[in-house]
Structure formats: structure tokens, C-alpha cells
């Protein structure tokens, strides 16, 4: 059955074309927003020092060329939307946006990672063989693609939701209503509903419904009979999150519009027909698209290259297992953050830290503390102060810096305190560990002191 599904099952390409256009438009808005908020400068150009993902220290900041990178991204996105030189555009977009994300892990967000993953998948999908400038120019369009190509995107969205839901099945989220309790209480200034956000029952209701939503929504979206109502839930849920947490940026819109891929083929055809009529006002050429929209018998089917299916299967195997890599580490995941990223742990914890560094000359025993503001932006300092891999990388950077200044026999000790989900702050890093002697790796970081509490759950 699986074999016949993978080789025989076909679907109309309209949903994929709509997804391409919608994704492109969202990215266009996101890029322009990122630029106009001044984040290209403040996140990628202003900092003297960038925190690197393990194994990606070769990715360098580009200085003012970062603007060129983002300009190219915007051009590529326009190509994606129009389906003009699509393959080139999407590959360029994937490489450029992923490169920019790799410059500094301080900016890591699940939805940036999500964006890169989607862009990666789209590199191999025939998203512009239909309803695109490419199709018009080649005067060739298709009306069937293998079902797994559209279902792959759906599966990926399902994984995102489901894993985000599983991550919420823990004692802090469900039994303490944390961190939502901390966050919602401070949202007293939201019109109308702000008044009730201080009540404990609201925090519990929000926590539980958030968890249930994330776990179950994929199934309701997949099941035809519940699809429409589920989509209404998607819209309501993400609008709520945007109201409560304006700082989550584009994420709600990406999820709402991304979920349209679950809707019926006919819905997608309607949208494209609407678009075609609109476009035809500007150029008669777009009427060519009409032909292809209406002929369903022609059966011009798309034959994907041999390597794509195995590639997709590998991608999904990684996606399914990667979020569970935390099980290979001892200690509390939220505290140590070993295996935390790339696992769809979204809005899951409130963590605040205060970490200062003591530089010591091991021979003459002289010590002094570093003012982090001399080296890091406030945003970097905030992220560094509670994430062990940041602390280690920064400690090495400091050692390097002071060695160049002529200091010798340098030892670096962290004086670090972190509070998690409303717990009192605790000492985070073993103050007797010379971080200059510790090497970054995927191994367990023994110098992170264990959390004095236990969080139960997945």
C-alpha cells in the first residue's frame, strides 16, 4: 500500500502552487519587516562578536554586505512568488537565509529554523511547474504531481505542531501553568481581556488548551470531516498568541497561512482562479493559466527525479528523531538545554540569567570581573546569560581577548545565576571550573550545576 501510494497516488498541483505563493509573500513581509526594524544592523553588523552554532564557526559575519545578502533574499523571494526562475530563486533563498541564520545563534528562533526547513523542501518540489511565469514561458504546465510531494509539507507541519504539543506535556506547563502564569499576569494592559489575565484559572486554561491544541490539531486538519472547523481553530489560536505575545513576530501568520495546505484542492483552485483574473487585468498572457486550471483530463504528470523521495524520507527520519536527542543527556533539559534547539520547543520556558566572568591569572592569582557590555549587545548578553553553550563560547572569546592584551596564564570562571519558570534563582555554572579548559562538544557539560528541582514529563 505504501509503495503504491509513493509511486501511483497523484494530486493536483494547485495546493503546492498556492503554498509557494503564500510562503513567498510571508517571507517578503518578514524580510522587509526585519530590515525596517533595523535588525540587520543590530543583530548582524553591530555586534563585535557572534555566537556560532557548533561546527559552523566558519560562517562569518558579512558586515555591511549583510544588506546585500538580504537584498538578494528579497529578489529571490519575488522570484519564488512569481514562479520566475523558480529553482534558482528557491535554492538561492534557502542558502542565503540559512547562511544569515548561521552567523549568530543568538537570533535562533524556531520559526526561522522552520523557514529554512520549508525552503529546503521547496528546493526539490515542482512548486512552479504550475501557475507560474516559468510555466507560461515554457508554455508547459502540469496537472498532477505525486501526492507525497504535497503530503510531505503537511507531514512537516504536523510534526511541528505535534512535537510542540508533546513538549508541553510536563509538570511546569500543566501543573504549575508556568511560564504562562508569569507571562499572562504581566499582560494586564491588553484591552478587554487584560483584566482576567491575572487569574490562576486563566493560566491553567491557556496552558492546557495550548497543549491540547498543539497535540490534536494536526489530526483534525488531516481528517476531511473536521478540516474546516480545525482551520477556524488554527486562525483563532494563532491570533490569540499574537495578541498575548506580540513579540513572536511573523510566527502566527506563518502557521495560519501555512496550514492552508491542508485545505481541499478545490479551495486552492479557487484562489488561483481569483489570482489569474486579477493578473489577467495586467497581461493577457496569464489567460494561458486558465486553460491549465480547467483541464483535468490532460494528465500531464510530473515525474520527480529519483533521488528526491529518498532525500525526503531521510529528512523526515531526522525530523522525527532529532527532538528526542535530549534523552541521551543526563539532567534537566530546560536547565542544561542540551538538545533543546531544533525540537519545536516553542514558548516553553521563562528563563532569566545573570552571568559575569572572572578572569584570573593562575600564577599571580590576580582576578578581575568583565563588564559584558564591553563585548556583547544587550540582546546577546541576555541570551548568553542562561545558555551553557553561549557561556562557554564567550568564556573562550574573553580568554582570547585578554591573552591578546598581554595577560598570561588566563583562567575564566563564570559567576552565573539563573531562574527558570518562576523558581528562585540558583547558581548555574560551577564557579570552580576554569571554562578556558573546557571544550565545546556534543558531550554532557558537567560544569553546569544541576537544577535543584525536578520537572516531570516529556
Amino acid at each position, binding site marked *: 500500500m505504501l509503495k503504491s501510494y509513493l509511486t501511483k497516488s497523484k494530486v493536483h498541483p494547485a495546493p503546492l502552487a498556492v503554498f509557494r505563493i503564500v510562503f513567498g509573500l510571508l517571507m517578503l513581509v518578514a524580510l522587509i519587516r526585519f530590515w525596517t526594524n533595523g535588525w540587520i544592523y543590530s543583530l548582524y553588523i553591530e555586534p563585535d562578536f557572534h555566537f556560532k552554532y557548533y561546527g559552523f564557526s566558519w560562517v562569518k559575519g558579512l558586515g555591511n554586505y549583510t544588506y546585500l545578502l538580504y537584498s538578494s533574499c528579497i529578489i529571490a523571494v519575488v522570484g519564488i512568488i512569481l514562479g520566475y526562475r523558480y529553482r534558482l530563486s528557491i535554492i538561492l533563498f534557502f542558502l542565503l537565509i540559512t547562511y544569515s541564520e548561521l552567523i549568530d545563534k543568538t537570533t535562533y528562533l524556531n520559526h526561522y529554523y522552520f523557514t529554512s526547513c520549508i525552503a529546503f523542501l521547496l528546493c526539490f518540489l515542482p512548486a512552479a511547474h504550475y501557475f507560474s511565469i516559468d510555466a507560461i514561458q515554457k508554455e508547459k504546465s502540469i496537472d498532477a504531481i505525486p501526492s507525497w510531494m504535497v503530503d510531505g509539507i503537511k507531514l512537516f507541519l504536523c510534526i511541528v505542531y505535534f512535537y510542540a504539543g508533546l513538549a508541553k506535556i510536563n509538570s511546569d506547563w500543566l501543573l504549575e501553568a508556568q511560564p504562562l502564569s508569569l507571562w499572562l499576569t504581566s499582560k494586564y494592559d491588553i484591552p478587554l481581556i487584560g483584566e482576567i489575565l491575572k487569574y490562576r*484559572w486563566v493560566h*491553567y486554561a491557556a496552558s492546557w488548551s495550548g497543549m491540547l491544541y498543539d497535540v490534536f490539531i494536526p489530526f483534525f486538519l488531516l481528517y476531511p470531516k473536521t478540516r474546516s472547523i480545525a482551520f477556524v481553530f488554527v486562525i483563532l489560536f494563532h491570533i490569540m498568541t499574537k495578541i498575548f505575545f506580540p*513579540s513572536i513576530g511573523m510566527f502566527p501568520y506563518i502557521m495560519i497561512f501555512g496550514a492552508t495546505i491542508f485545505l481541499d484542492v478545490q479551495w486552492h483552485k479557487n484562489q488561483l482562479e481569483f489570482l489569474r483574473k486579477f493578473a489577467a487585468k495586467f497581461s493577457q498572457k496569464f489567460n494561458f493559466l486558465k486553460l491549465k486550471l480547467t483541464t483535468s483530463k490532460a494528465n500531464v504528470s510530473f515525474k520527480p527525479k529519483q533521488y528526491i523521495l529518498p532525500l525526503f524520507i531521510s529528512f523526515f527520519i531526522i525530523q522525527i528523531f532529532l527532538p528526542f536527542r535530549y534523552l541521551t543527556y543526563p539532567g534537566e533539559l530546560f536547565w542544561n538545554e542540551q538538545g533543546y534547539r531544533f525540537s519545536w520547543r516553542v*514558548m516553553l520556558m521563562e528563563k532569566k540569567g545573570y552571568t559575569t566572568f572572572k578572569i584570573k591569572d593562575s600564577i599571580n592569582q590576580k582576578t578581575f*570581573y*568583565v*563588564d559584558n557590555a564591553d563585548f556583547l549587545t544587550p540582546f546577546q548578553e541576555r541570551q548568553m546569560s542562561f545558555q551553557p553553550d553561549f557561556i562557554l563560547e564567550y568564556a573562550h572569546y574573553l580568554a582570547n581577548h585578554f591573552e591578546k592584551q598581554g595577560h598570561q596564564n588566563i583562567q575564566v570562571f563564570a559567576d552565573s*545565576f539563573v531562574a527558570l519558570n518562576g523558581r*528562585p534563582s540558583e547558581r548555574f555554572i560551577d564557579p570552580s571550573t576554569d571554562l578556558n579548559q573546557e571544550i565545546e562538544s556534543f558531550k554532557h557539560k558537567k560544569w553546569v550545576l544541576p537544577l535543584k528541582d525536578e520537572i516531570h514529563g516529556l
Partner: protein
Amino acid sequence: MKNLISIKVILLSLILLNCTSDSDTNDVIEETGLNIEEQQTEFDRLSMLTFWADNIIIPSINSFYVELNSLNEYASSFTSNPNPSTLTQLRDQWLTTYKKWQHIEMFDIGVAEEIYFKNRMNIFPANVEKIENNISNFDFNLDDSVNFASQGFTAFDYLLFGIAQDDDEIIAKYSDSSQNYDSYMLAITSKMIELTISVKSNWEGSYRDSFVESTENTATSSINIMLNDFVFYFEKGYRANKFGIPAGVFSGGPLPDRIEAYNGEIYSQILALEATTAIENFFNGIAYGDPNKTGLSIKNYLDFIESDVSDKLSARINNQLQAGKNKINELNTNFKIQIKENNHEMLLTYDAIQSTVILLKVDMLQKLNVSVDYADADGD
């Protein structure tokens, strides 16, 4: 689907019912003089801001202004008639005014922030070379940032104690008007008055109302700015400037010449204790000049958020503030001597204060969900 939805609804309503019955605790509510009977479910941010403005900030600025005018008078009588008696009177008044200053340095908001009030009133160490240049050339612009360290209390400290070896020589310098020391002192005094008037009139004007009404939780709202200012002052103006830097925490070796009121020497402890009192009063909502009058405060705000917690953060903060204060009390009144003779005690004091920084910056700001900076980037 319908079945599942109803399961969801039932589950949810069960949870809701369960939790409402939990949250009906009734702790003893402290009497604070204002109407906060419903503290359990309501926190009146408007009252808190009103209390800050009307009972702490504006009265402390006014009181400071009165003393500053006296300082001006004593400076006039000293410069017109320099002798040991007028010098002592002026020094006393300088200390009185300096102590008042400790109550307003943390309010770096509104006009005070715009005109760099705290940087011009109390940046130390003083730039002695610049001061001497200004005096000998008598051509200077105190509004230029290069002169921030050559005016205010620190410059005054130098002019009162540092320009010569002993009091006779100091008096001699002021007796010779051609040396300009007298004119420079008066120039600095009138600049301090001028700056204070602009801050004071700002608060007495429309600013007070807009401050009080800004109760929302945004990066630019009064509560957030005040909390950030308070924490920043505690960490920088109080912990680092008064203790950490002179004790050598950031430099590898002690820097006793970095103490507050370096030339006066014996005043460093008094000033530090006064600042501690100002911090405690603001945190606990004690009116300026009247310890019996209290109002809504950060402490109450924390207790409101922690209404179901028994080990209150506010209590831990107050205990730690007290621990720091005890340490300061054990120090030599002259921090310079303390640092030179037993810097270890100075470092221990710093550590006690540092523990409070962690409670304020990590625990408190997490509970109040106030961001420590304005770096805006998306989060998830």
C-alpha cells in the same frame, strides 16, 4: 471530531473548576495607608506611580533643591569671607546636600535623563586636571560633556578638600580672588541649581501626570522605565561605583582613589548608607521624609504576583539589602582606609550587594516580567 471537541471542553471545564477553588487563599494584607483592600486580585498601578511621584520623587527633589540653595548661600559667604568657620559650614552643608542627592540619583527619567543629570551631578572620580585647567584659564563650558567630571558634587569635593594640603592653604586659595577658585565654585553651584530647576519644574509641570498615567507594560511605560532605572542604579550607581570599582573588582587591583567623595575621604560610608536607605525606601514604598507614611511599592507588586507563594521574594530581597547594610556598617567610615588596610572586607561587602543584584535582576524582573533592556527582537 464532535466527540473529541466535547472531551476537550469537559477536560477544560474540569481543570478550570479545579483551579478556581485553589486560588481562593486569603493572606493577611498589609496596611499601607492607601486603599488596597483588594490586593489579592487587584494591583493598583496608578496608585503606585502616584505614590512614587507625589511621595517619593517630587518631595526628594524639592528637599534636595532647598538644601542646594543653602549650599549656594554658604558658598557665597565662604567665598566672600574665607575662614575656617565658613569653610566648616560650607562643608557641612555640602554633605547635607550630597546626602539628599543620594535619594534622587536613581530617578534617571524624563528631563533628568535628557540632561544627563546624574552624570553631571555625581560622576566620580573628578577630572582634577580639567578642573584646574578650567580654573586657571577660566574659559569653560559646563554643558560640554568633557566637563561632566569637572562639575557637581565630585568637583565640589575637590574644591573643598583637595586643592591644597591643609585647610589654611585651601582658605588661602579662596582668599586670592585672582586664582578663580571662588568663581569656579560659584559657577558650579549655580549650574547645579540650574540643572535641578529644570528637573524640578519638569516634575511640577505636565510630566508628573503623564508619568502617573503610564501604567501599561511596555518598554516606554513609567513602571518599566522606573524598574529598569532602579535595577540599573542598584547595579551601576550603587554596587559598582560605590563599592566594586574602588575595591578593584573590575580591575585586578584596588583603586582607592575611585571612592565617592575621595578628597573628603571620611564621607564615603555615610553617603553609601544614605543611598542604601533611599533604595530600601523606594523598594518598600516609604514616603520621603516621613518613615511612617507608606504606599504601594515594588514590594507590594511582588507580593501581589506571589500571592500564593509563602517564601516571598520581597522578603528575601529585604533580607539581602539588610545583609549588605550590615556589611557597610562594619566598614571604616573612610573607604579609602578600608580598601588600603583590609580590602577583603570591602570585597565581602560587594559580594553581599551583588547577591541583591541577582535577586533584583533575575528573580524580581522575571516575576514582574519586565525586560532588562530595550533590545527588541522577536522571541518564541
